[in-house]
């Protein structure tokens, strides 16, 4: 094996050079396409809401397909086989959803100056409590996601041999994140938007080379699948519940994982931030078609897990499967490029996530409850500081607690963010559902989802709790295995529907709705009606 404990100079040199290039871009981004100083949430946190088709394609792609994706999806195939391929139906289903739903969110956000999903909830339902619940869920779900980006960088650094002892072990990670924090602070969303070009170009190059070059060395795709099939037929693999095709009854887990993840993806604050940063609703529609190549890329990336099996990569931490595969199959200089691609791939989403969390905190907690008189300048100042705190929090998280803890929490985060789906998406179409019912449904989904996630063991990893995303349901005479996030969503929806019927029948006040039907279809260039917005509208 090529893998040495010492640092390999060429790899590291390329890695540092590309990292510095990207840092320079990040700082330069403050001047990019900016009309004035970044003294408002719209400018700092949404890039002036000005990105067109081209930039948004890179930005959204760079935002959604994170470094952790490149590590974790193949790791899942490497570890569990066919079930891990759910990422493919997931990305197939998500774009039609975006196509249908997100233009409405864009329009109403545009008309009412909403910068976060919670802003929309407050405008639509007149309920600061529901808006707060959505904001807190968004922040709490985003934090471990940022931490996971660090885990992605960590996997790469570790594979390069950068693993000192004690506090030095984490020094490269801390330096990388400090630089990221600095340029996000100065340039806001423009920094990841500009870096996304580099990130996506690198990722496309690396993956295209990987899916052509590695199979050519391993004896072709047929051989790779042949080896994988034999691997999953071994008793050891069977004991770990891994399989080459979906096991009997595994179809439900497969599609619920895909659908639940698709529902969750665009509820994440960082996805909505990217959506709201576009120039008009057509950009979103167009990109929901044009982003499909990323899905294809993801499908190919997933197969890297099987290539790792065929290349006889043996790791206990499955997150190291892809880095080890690259180390084994690529020449050193290209390993440097590939690892840079993964690390830079972590920076773009981490920046957008921290901005999204900062926007949420500023708009929906700070301004809403503490500093009601904040000017746009003060909002931007608060958001910038919060973006720093969020990143420090993520670093502390990863350095002090185990990486596994971030993974567990991120799984939970997916379950949690899914529970905001009923409020946000139903709100885009109807006011039938009552704000208190939506709140109760959210709570029911959060609690049951968390309990189910807690109860999932993982015998292969000797974990008793948070062992995975598939829950064995044995209540009310029903027995099945499915994604617990989606089960929780169903519980959530039942509460929402029943609660709404009851509350509406009792004529409990529904809250003030500031939107009008045409706001949801408002096209590009519609002027904001600033005076009208503050006025009460008939609910």
């Amino acid at each position: 094996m090529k893998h040495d404990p010492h640092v390999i100079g060429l790899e590291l040199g390329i890695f540092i050079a590309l990292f510095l290039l990207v840092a320079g871009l990040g700082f330069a981004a403050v001047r990019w396409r900016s009309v004035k100083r970044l003294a408002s949430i719209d400018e700092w946190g949404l890039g002036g809401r000005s990105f067109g088709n081209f930039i948004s394609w890179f930005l959204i792609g760079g935002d959604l397909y994170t470094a952790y994706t490149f590590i974790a999806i193949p790791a899942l195939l490497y570890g569990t086989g066919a079930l891990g391929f759910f990422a493919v139906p997931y990305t197939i289903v998500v774009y039609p959803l975006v196509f249908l739903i997100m233009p409405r969110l864009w329009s109403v956000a545009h008309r009412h100056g909403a910068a976060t999903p919670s802003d929309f909830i407050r405008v639509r339902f007149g309920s600061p409590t529901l808006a707060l619940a959505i904001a807190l869920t968004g922040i709490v779900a985003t934090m471990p996601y940022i931490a996971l980006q660090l885990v992605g960088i960590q996997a790469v650094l570790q594979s390069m041999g950068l693993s000192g002892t004690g506090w030095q072990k984490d020094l490269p990670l801390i330096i990388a994140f400090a630089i990221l924090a600095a340029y996000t602070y100065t340039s806001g969303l423009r920094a990841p938007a500009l870096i996304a070009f580099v990130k996506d170009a690198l990722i496309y190059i690396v993956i295209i080379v990987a899916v052509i070059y590695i199979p050519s060395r391993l004896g072709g795709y047929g051989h790779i699948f042949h080896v994988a099939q034999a691997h999953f037929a071994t008793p050891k693999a069977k004991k770990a519940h891994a399989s080459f095709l979906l096991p009997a009854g595994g179809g439900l887990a497969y599609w619920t994982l895909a659908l639940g993840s698709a529902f969750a993806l665009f509820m994440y604050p960082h996805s909505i931030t990217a959506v709201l940063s576009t120039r008009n609703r057509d950009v979103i529609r167009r990109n929901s078609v044009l982003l499909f190549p990323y899905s294809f890329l993801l499908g190919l990336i997933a197969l890297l897990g099987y290539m790792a099996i065929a290349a006889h990569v043996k790791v206990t931490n499955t997150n190291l499967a892809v880095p080890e595969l690259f180390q084994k199959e690529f020449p050193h200089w290209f390993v440097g490029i590939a690892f840079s691609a993964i690390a830079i791939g972590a920076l773009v989403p981490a920046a957008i996530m921290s901005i999204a969390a900062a926007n949420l905190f500023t708009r929906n907690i700070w301004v809403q409850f503490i500093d009601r008189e904040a000017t746009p300048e003060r909002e931007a100042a608060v958001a910038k500081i919060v973006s720093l705190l969020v990143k420090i929090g993520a670093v502390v998280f990863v350095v002090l607690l185990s990486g596994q803890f971030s993974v567990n929490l991120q799984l939970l985060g997916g379950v949690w963010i899914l529970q905001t789906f009923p409020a946000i998406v139903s709100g885009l179409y109807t006011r039938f559902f009552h704000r208190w019912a939506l709140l109760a449904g959210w709570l029911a989904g959060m609690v049951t989802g968390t309990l189910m996630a807690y109860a999932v063991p993982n015998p292969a990893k000797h974990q008793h709790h948070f062992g995975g995303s598939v829950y064995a349901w044995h209540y009310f005479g029903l027995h099945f295995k499915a994604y617990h996030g989606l089960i929780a969503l169903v519980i959530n929806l039942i509460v929402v529907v029943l609660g709404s019927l009851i509350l509406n029948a009792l004529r409990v006040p529904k809250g003030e709705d500031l939107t009008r039907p045409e706001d949801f279809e408002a096209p590009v260039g519609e002027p904001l009606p600033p005076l009208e917005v503050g006025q009460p509208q008939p609910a």
Partner: protein
Amino acid sequence: MDSFPGVDGRRRTGAAISPARVVAYALLVGESLVILIPTVYGRATPRLFGIPFFYWFQLLWIIVGMVVTGIAYLLVERPPSAGGRDPAAAHPSAERPGAAR
């Protein structure tokens, strides 16, 4: 077969349901449903270049998804910015949004 104009002759909300929209939505739902039913593709054969059906079918369906979403994009009417109102009239982010209290 274009959109239905509102009473005042202006296109109003997305409530205008044109046949083209129905076809577009049906395509999107149908394409998504197929990939959400693993019994459709949960087998090893027929293989393609040695790749089991389960894997190549789903990769192929990504391309189908793109084509279908592309057709839906063309079918769904464009936002009415081209007609009626003056698109240059506004610069949306210039003012502080009043709704954000």
